[in-house]
C-alpha cells in the first residue's frame, strides 16, 4: 500500500505505516529489509512556507524543506550560520538536494550491524548490541545506553545547539533535546508512532552570531564523521557572550558540551582560552575498547570548530 496525503494531519501513520519524505534513507532500509511497512509518502504535502526570520519570534522551517535549501538560504546563512554550515557539510550535494529537514532529523542509525541484512541487532529485532562485543571502530565514546552506535543526524546536532523546538502533528511539540532523549533508549529518536514532525522552530536570531562546523574524517568529504562539532559564538567586546557547542558521531544522541560552554562564557577568544575549554570536552567520555582515539581527537575537533566560528 502507498498513499500520498496532502497534509501532515492526513499523514499520521496507521499501525502498519511509515512515513517517507525524500527517501534517501528510507529506500536503502527498504532494500535491506529493515522496514516492511506500508508507505505514507509525503510527496504531495504542500511545499513549506518560504523561510522568514522574525527578530522577535525566530523562524519556522517546514519539515519538507530540503537540506540544500536550508544550506544556501541567505537568511539562514546570516542569522543561523551554524545551521547553514552543518546543512551544507553533511552528505553530498545530490543527497542534500533531495533529503529533507524532517528526514534528516529522524534518520536511522548507520551502524554496520544494523544495516547488515542478515544480522539482527538491538535496533533490528535482536537481543544484543553486536557492535559492543564485535567491531565498533566507528562507534560511541560516550557510552550512554544499550546501543553503541552514534546518532547520525548532523542537523539534530546543529539544532540542539539552537535549543530548537519541533512541531509535532498528532502529539505534543517538544525540544530537539527531547526528540533524542538521554541515550538510554535503543530508538534513534523518541517520536512515537502516529506522530508527524511537521516543522522546526528556531529561536530569535542572536545579533552578530558566528557559526562553526568541523568534522573529523579520513577523506576530504563524503564520509560519516568520526566526530563532528557545531559551534555558535557571540563575541561582544572581545568576550564570549554566547557559547554553544554540540557534538555528533560520538554518542547515541547528539550532545551539548555544557562544560565547555560554561568554561568559555565571559572569557576571551584567544587560542589558549579556547584550547583549555576544549580540553574539557572529554570529561564525560566513556570509550569502548576501539574508540579511545575519539577521546584523543575530541578536544582538537572542538577547538577547530570554536576557531571556525571565531574566525568566520
Amino acid at each position, binding site marked *: 500500500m502507498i498513499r500520498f496525503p496532502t497534509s501532515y494531519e492526513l499523514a499520521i501513520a496507521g499501525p502498519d505505516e511509515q512515513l517517507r519524505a525524500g*527517501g534517501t534513507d528510507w*529506500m536503502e532500509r527498504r532494500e535491506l529489509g529493515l522496514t516492511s511497512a506500508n508507505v505514507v509518502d509525503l510527496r504531495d504535502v504542500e511545499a513549506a512556507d518560504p523561510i522568514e526570520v522574525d527578530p522577535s519570534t525566530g523562524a519556522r522551517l517546514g519539515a519538507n524543506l530540503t537540506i540544500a535549501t536550508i544550506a544556501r538560504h541567505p537568511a539562514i546563512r546570516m542569522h543561523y550560520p551554524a545551521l547553514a554550515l552543518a546543512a551544507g557539510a553533511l552528505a553530498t550535494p545530490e543527497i542534500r538536494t*533531495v533529503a529533507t529537514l524532517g528526514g534528516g532529523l529522524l534518520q536511522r542509525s548507520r551502524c554496520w550491524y544494523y544495516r547488515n541484512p*542478515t544480522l539482527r541487532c538491538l535496533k533490528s529485532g535482536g537481543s544484543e548490541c553486536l557492535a559492543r562485543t564485535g567491531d565498533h571502530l566507528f562507534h560511541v565514546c560516550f557510552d550512554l545506553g544499550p546501543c553503541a552506535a552514534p546518532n547520525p543526524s548532523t542537523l539534530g546536532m546543529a539544532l540542539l545547539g539552537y535549543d530548537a523546538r519541533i512541531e509535532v502533528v498528532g502529539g505534543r511539540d517538544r525540544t530537539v533535546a527531547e526528540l533524542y532523549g538521554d541515550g538510554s533508549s535503543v530508538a534513534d529518536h523518541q517520536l512515537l508512532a502516529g506522530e508527524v514532525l511537521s516543522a522546526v522552530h528556531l529561536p530569535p536570531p542572536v545579533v552578530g552570531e558566528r557559526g562553526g562546523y568541523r568534522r573529523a574524517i579520513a577523506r*576530504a*568529504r*563524503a564520509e560519516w564523521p568520526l566526530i563532528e562539532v557545531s559551534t555558535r559564538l557571540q563575541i561582544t567586546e572581545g568576550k564570549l557572550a554566547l557559547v554553544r557547542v554540540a557534538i555528533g558521531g560520538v554518542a547515541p544522541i547528539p550532545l551539548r558540551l555544557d562544560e565547555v560552554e560554561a568554561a568559555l562564557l565571559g572569557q576571551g577568544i584567544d587560542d589558549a582560552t579556547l584550547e583549555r575549554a576544549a580540553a574539557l570536552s572529554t570529561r564525560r567520555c566513556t570509550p569502548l575498547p576501539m574508540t579511545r*582515539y*575519539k577521546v584523543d*581527537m575530541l578536544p582538537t575537533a572542538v577547538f577547530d570548530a570554536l576557531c571556525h566560528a571565531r574566525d568566520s
Partner: protein
Amino acid sequence: MTNDERVRVEFQLDGGAQALAVGADDTALAVLREHCGRTGTKLGCGHGVCGACAVLVDGESVKTCLLPATALHRRSVTTVEGLAQADRLHPIQRAFMAEDALQCGYCTPGFLIRSASFVDQWRREQGDVAPSRDTIAAALAGHLCRCGAYEQIFAAVASACTGVHDSMDPVVPRYDARVKVEGKAVYTVDVKLAGQLEGRMLRSPHAHAKVVVLDLERARQRPGVKAVLDLRGADAMVRYAGQEIAAVAAIDRHTAEAALRDIEIRYEVFPAAIGMERALADGAALVYPRRSERKLAPNTSEGPLGPLGWTGNLRGPFFFFSVKRRKARAAIERARAGAGTLVEGIWETQVQCHTALEPNAAVARWDDDGGLSVWVSTQAVHRMSHDIATRFGLPQAKVRVFADYVGGGFGGKADFAPSTRAAIELAKLAGAPVRVVLDRREELTVGGLRPAQKFDLALAANEAGELAGMRLTAWGDAGVAIGSVTSSMFRIMYKRAPRDLSDYDVTTHGPPGKPFRGPGGPPAFWALEQAIDQMAIARTIDPVALRRSWDDSPVRTRLYDWVETLDAWTQRGPIAADKGRYRRGVGLAAGGWFYFVQSATKVEVALGPQGVIASTASQDMGNGTRTAIANAVARHFTISPHAVEVRIGDSRLVEGPFSGGSRTTASVVPAADDGAIRLRELLTKAVAAKLGLRQARGEASGIVHADGVLGWAEAFAVAPECSVVGKRVKDQGGFFLPFRVEGLAIGRFLAGSVQVVELEVDTRLGKIRPLRTWAGIGCGRLISPELARSQLQGGIIQGLSYALYEERRLDPRTGQLLTGSLDDYRIAGIGDIPEIHTHFDEAGFEDVRSGTVGLGELVTLAPAACVGNAVMHATGWRPLTLPIRPDRLVEAMKATSQ
C-alpha cells in the same frame, strides 16, 4: 515484503512524455532502466554513494538509486542519453572526450550529469572562468570512479567552464570515448534479451557450517519462478559467509528474492576461523581438515599452484624465489651482531576489495541449435568460452562469450564466477535467458579481494654498504583461497644479494581472494620499499643514493636521474622537521614489474567495405584495448584511429589476450602491427596489379610506386576486400622461459617505476592529505600517450586509496561482511587525490616487439610505500599497518609525544 500496488506517474523524459505505473518501492533508477530503456544511467552502489545513477530532475542532479519512482511524477527528467541536444553534445561531454576523463566509462554518465549541472550553473553565476580544484571537488563529492579518472575529470570540468568546448570537435584520444559519453555503451548489466529472467542467489549467513536440509520445493512453486538451482558442493560444506547455496530465476528480481526466502534450509553450524590470527591459534577451526578437501581451495593467483605441505590452516612454505638462503640468513645474523646494518620489522596489510563499479554479472541464453551465448562482465572473453565449454561439455565453437563494454575489472572478473555458472544453469533449467547481477554487498563479499598480508622482513647491509642478505616470511590470508605469493617481488628488486624468501597461505573462513591488479605487489612493496627507506635512514644516506647502489635496473636508473631533478624531492629537508600540528613530508618508493605476453594472440586486420577492420577476442575494461589496436593499425595507413573499426568482446574472433598481468598492450599491439603490415603488403600487390603500378611498395603514406604515391584512401577504393591474421611474433632474443605458463610468455625485461609523494599530516585528527605526486614510469614506447597517462593516474589513485582508506572488515564472530556498502568500504573520491605529475621514460624495450610493455599493474606498486615513507619523513613515525587510518595515526602520535 513486496508491495504490489501500482501508482501512476507522468513525467517528461529527455523531452518526451512518459506515463506509466510504478510500484511504491520501485526506485526511479529501476524504472528508468527497466521500463524506459535508459540504460545509460547505471546502478553502481545502490545506496547513494557512487553517483553512477545520477539524472537531472527539473535541472538538478539527483541520485536515482535512492529516489522513489513516485517522486518523478510531474517532473522533468534528463538522462545521459538526453544530454546532447539533437546530436549536439553538451560541452561537458566534449570536455570528457578531449581530456580523457573516463576509463571503463561506467561511472561516466553520473559524472557527466552532475558536471553538466555544475558547469551550467557556474557559467551563469561566474562567467566563463575555470573554477578551483576544490570547488570542483566539492561539486563532485557524491561521485566515485574506481578506475581513478579524477585528475582528468578536474581538467574536463575546468575546461568546460571556460567555454573552450562549446563548439569545437575535440581530438579524442580514447577510441570508445564518444559512445561512453553518450550513454550508448552496452555493459553486461544493460543486456536485455527477449523473455529474459532475473536470477538471484541464496548465500550462507554462516562462515562455517554444513547444509543439512535444503528444500527448494516451496520456492519452485511460487508463481513467477522459472528455475531453482542447488549450488552446494558435493560435501554440502559452507566455508565462508556469503557462499552460494542456491539460485532462483524468476520473472523479476522481487519474485526471485521472495523465492529465496521460501527456501527451507538448515545448517549445522561450526566454529569459524575469521582472520589470520584466529586461524593460526591452537585449536582453530580448520578450513580444510582433510587432505581430500584441499583440492577444493580456489587459487587467488594468476599462476599455477604447486604442491605444498599443510599444517592445520597453514600451507607452505613456498621458497622457490630464494637465492642462497643460508648465506642470506648468515648475513642477517652478522648484521644483528653489529657488523653492518640490520633493518627488520613486521608489516601488515588489509584485505582490499576490487569493487569495480559494474559488478560481476552474466546473462546466459541457450540457443535452439544447442549453442550457448553468454554475456559476461569479464576480463577474458576468449578464456571464458573455453572454461564454459569445458564445464558444460560443449565444443568451444558452440559457446559464444560477449563482453562489449566492461565496467572495470582490476582482476576481479577473470574467473569463471558462480554468478556466470548460475546464469547458465538457470537458463538451461528455465528454457529462457537469465541475467544474474551481484548487488554491491555481494560484490564486496565475493566479487573479489586482495589477500591480507603479514610480512616479517629483514634487510642486512654489510660494512661496505652492500645489500648482504634479505629474509622474508610472508603470510597471506586469501580466505578459503590459496596461492598468495609475494616473494617474487622480493626477488625482482635489488637482485644482487642472497635472499631467504618464504610465502605461506593461511586459510581462514572468509570469501576467496582473486588476483588483484599486481597480485602480491602493493603489499610487498609496502614492506620492501619502507625497509629500504629505513635502511637509508639507519645508514644516514640518501634514499635514492642507496637505491642506485643496490639496484641494477637500467630503467629505474634513468628514473632516479629524473627524480633528482625534482625540487620537491631534492629540497625535502630533514626528517620530522616540522614540530607543529600539521607536518609536511616527502616520500619516495620504487617499483618493478614483470612483462607478460599472451603469445598466441592474433589480431585479424581486414579491408571491408567501410575501411580497415581490426578484430580480436579480447575486451576493454577501461584499459584501452580498443585504442591500442586502433592506434597501432592506423599508423600503418596514416589514417585516424577512429577510422579503424575495432571489433572485440566476442570469443568467436581470433584469440586475443585476457586483460590481466599487464599483457594486453604487449600482446595486441605487435599482433596488430604484424597484421597491418601484412594487409598493407597484400593490398599493395592487389592494387599494383589492378592499376599496373610499377615497383610498388606499401608504406604508411600510401603505395609508393615508380610514378608517385597512391594514398591509402584511393587504394582502399580500388582494392578488393581481404583479410590477414597478424600474430604476436617472439621478441628479439626470445622470452625469459622457452615455454609458456598458462598461455603466458614471460618477457626478458622488467618495467620500472619511481614515485615521489608530498603530503601533509594532521597529527591531531589523524588525517593524511596527499598534496602532490610525481610518478616516473618505464614501460617502453607509448602507443596511446594520453591513455597511458590516464592509467598511470588511476593506478596511483587506487594505490593511495589502498594506503589510506580501503579496508574490508568482517565481523570477528560471524564472518559477516561489515563493510558491505561504499559508505563503509571507503575508496578515494575526487577530493582526496593529489596533483599528479607523470613522466614516461620510453627507452629500454627496443628488443620487445613494437617496443612496448604494459603498465597497468606497475603503477599501483609504489604509492602505498611512498605514503608510508612520506609519513615517516613528516613525523618520524613509520606506519607498519595498512590502511593508515586516523585512529592509528593519532594513537602513534600520542605514543611518540609521551
